[in-house]
């Protein structure tokens, strides 16, 4: 039994000043959902600790109550929401960039730092932190580590987990531990526990601080766009690019509906109708990328495109990626709700799976807009619907299940960068056999056996029992 909001307010205000304990319905509504807007869970209270020390006190004070850690709330899988009620702990005050070590290519940041803030701080050193989810302007490093976030440029640079050198975490018993540090090793531990922490979706503890690996900024980038009339030609282009020795940093695919959305927005670029579009990029030292640009364009042409465009103008590049990243927001024009899937497939199955998506969407009468980190095989079909119509919600669930089944059948997996949250829990049995599932479920038993942290996420079996 979770105590009432009034009780929680009184109880928490012994630990945290009252302005940082939220309990009124109007305040709580803002924390009821994440980017998966149609599934909402009103928390019983929200608390905003000032620092790690206060966070520990809050966690100790909330013994026996479900806790959900939350950064910017931009997750797309129903992760940072109080699915079993309880208290949301918002990390917005832990926003310090504590140290940048340019000689060692690392930085130390608090969990509430957002990606753009970090990027601006790193720019004067000629360094960057490569993961770049579309929500970079607001999303936090804490949320990124929790969901092992990716982004457009992960094809070559890798995802968040490739850059986490160390994690400071408060475990449910209130103890604070550092796993790793600037060196990125195990530290004083025998096992490398940070490997389990990354991508654990807030189910093992509360992150407070990270040490992140940095890398020199690319001196120059060439960005390419090309359109194709057919899925097969698009797939050929992707296959050609992933094998190219220029190692593109990003290979992005936008389907005709995604292109149309961009064209109906202020970011319109005069793109042709009814075409699949590929945006790709190479970067590195000018002496190298200048040598490679023409051969990348040739790969795009040889797959059948007659409108390959490429250039090294940073402003054009920015516009192109801004348009690609804005698609999630533009979907709001089409329908009150959307659900985006995040499956990863072998790239030989690209046309097959996209066709399945379109067929199922047509059959259900629900439009789908697909973008894809094609280099990684990471699909993002956005099904638009109205959650106020139960029959549409039901159709979405049927399509999602069919899609996931086929994704697994071709050798893919449920999620590439969004995490499982409460959105994809029910499909986990498709991925893990009984023994593998047992090993998976053993991980929270080490650190969070009562599932007080973020219950009903990742695996449906993870229900909090006081």
């Amino acid at each position, binding site marked *: 039994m979770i105590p009432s909001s009034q009780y929680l307010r009184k109880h928490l205000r012994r630990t945290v000043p009252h302005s940082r304990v939220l309990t009124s319905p109007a305040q709580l509504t803002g924390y009821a959902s994440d980017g998966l807007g149609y599934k909402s869970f009103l928390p019983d209270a929200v608390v905003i600790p000032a620092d790690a020390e206060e966070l520990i006190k809050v966690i100790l004070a909330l013994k026996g109550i479900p806790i959900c850690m939350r950064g910017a709330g931009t997750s797309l899988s129903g992760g940072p929401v109080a699915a079993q009620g309880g208290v949301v702990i918002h990390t917005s005050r832990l926003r310090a960039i504590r140290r940048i*070590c340019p000689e*060692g*290519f690392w930085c130390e940041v608090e969990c509430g730092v957002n990606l753009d803030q970090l990027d601006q701080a790193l720019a004067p050193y*000629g360094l960057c932190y490569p993961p770049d989810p579309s929500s970079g302007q607001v999303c936090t490093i804490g949320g990124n580590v929790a*969901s092992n976030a*990716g982004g457009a440029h992960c094809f070559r640079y890798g995802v968040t*987990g*490739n850059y986490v*050198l160390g994690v400071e975490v408060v475990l449910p018993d209130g103890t604070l531990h550092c796993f790793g*540090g600037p*060196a*990125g*090793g*195990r*530290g*004083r531990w*025998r096992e*490398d*526990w940070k*490997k389990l922490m*990354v991508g654990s979706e807030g189910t093992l503890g509360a992150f407070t601080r990270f*040490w992140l690996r940095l*890398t*020199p900024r*690319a*001196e120059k980038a060439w960005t390419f766009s090309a359109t194709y009339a057919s899925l097969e030609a698009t797939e050929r282009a992707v*296959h050609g690019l992933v*094998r190219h*020795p220029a*190692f593109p940093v990003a290979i992005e695919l936008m389907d005709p509906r995604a292109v149309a959305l961009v064209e109906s927005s202020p970011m319109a670029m005069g793109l042709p109708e009814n075409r699949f579009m590929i945006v790709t990029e190479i970067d590195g030292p000018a*002496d*190298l990328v200048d*040598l*490679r640009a023409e051969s990348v364009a040739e790969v795009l042409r040889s797959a059948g495109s007659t409108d390959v465009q490429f250039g090294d103008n940073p402003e054009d590049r920015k516009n192109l990626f801004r348009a690609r990243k804005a698609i999630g927001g533009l979907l709001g024009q089409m329908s009150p709700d959307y659900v985006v899937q995040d499956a*990863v497939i*072998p790239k*030989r199955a690209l046309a097959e799976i996209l066709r399945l998506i379109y067929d199922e969407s047509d059959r259900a009468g629900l439009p789908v807009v697909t973008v894809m980190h094609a280099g990684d*095989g990471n699909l993002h079909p956005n099904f638009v619907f109205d959650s106020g119509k139960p029959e549409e919600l039901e159709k979405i669930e049927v399509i999602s299940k069919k899609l996931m089944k086929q994704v697994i059948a071709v050798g*893919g*997996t*449920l999620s*590439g*960068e969004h995490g*499982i949250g409460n959105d994809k829990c*029910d499909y*986990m*049995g*498709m*991925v893990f*056999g*009984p023994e*593998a599932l047992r*090993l998976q479920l*053993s*991980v929270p*038993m*080490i650190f969070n056996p009562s599932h007080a942290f973020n219950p009903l996420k*990742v*695996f*449906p079996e993870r229900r909090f029992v006081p």
Partner: protein
Amino acid sequence: MSVLTEERLFEPFIDATDGVLCLPAGSDEAEIERLAGLHGLRFPLLHDRGAPLCDQVAASPFAPASSRFGPYCDNITGMNWELPDGRRVRIGERVVKSTTGYDLLRFLLGTVGRYGRPVDYVLRLRPACEESQTFFLRGDPVLLREAAAGILRTSWIHWFDSVDVLEGGEFSSLLRVAVNCPAEECDAYLGFLSGIAARHGLSLDQSPGLPMDGCPDLVIKTSPEVLPDIVQLLSGEYGAKCVGLCYCGVVHVFLPGQNPDSICRIAQALEPGLHAVGGDWSSRHVMPVNPDSPETEWIGKLKKEWNLP
């Protein structure tokens, strides 16, 4: 509730489009190169010609080409894992990106036999370019250190298979840079490295092929800014032959003829400094020390859940 399925173990395969290869964990360099090479691909993280891949992974989480491609755990996407009682489980995926469940793959890859052993690996392959060259810069150690820092600060670092400082043993001080590139790009690489050599008053020569140092006896993980000092200490004070992977902050230490006790003593002398920065050491000759509380408790819980002795 989830719908349970059967264990989905990996079967051997190669997918040239995705650049993934599944093969026994005991495969050696020749077998991996043969299978990948048929498709113009390579697995760049090999550091010993004769040793089975699983032994190479156990010897060090990093290979010289980790500078460019990351550690083994970023280049092994999945595996069939055998628990001590013989049960086999699939861990990880055949696709290169996954946030489906807890990352047992990366956790187990670093545990070297304590919770079972790898039976098969799924390897991420990369395009193999026709030219493989290793460049050597020689000269004053201080200038070599500056040259290494200069290379690391540029975006060229993403394009060198490795940038390593070599000290001790039969090495005089030198900086080693390995390149795998298309033939038409060779001049650009040479031009950059010649410029670095000229700026720092170093000599530059090259030999064909990529470095293959063998399995190290001791591996030190530290942060890149302190790596040169550790290399100097190990080579100077202990006479060790060291290969410092500059960008990774990893030192591969070769101590031929040393027994496990003396390797342990060398490592323990460095331990406080390493732990202070979240670093560590490991050696294929030395059993890891017993964990302290609370780690003992965590390991106990894990073993209980997994029915391990």
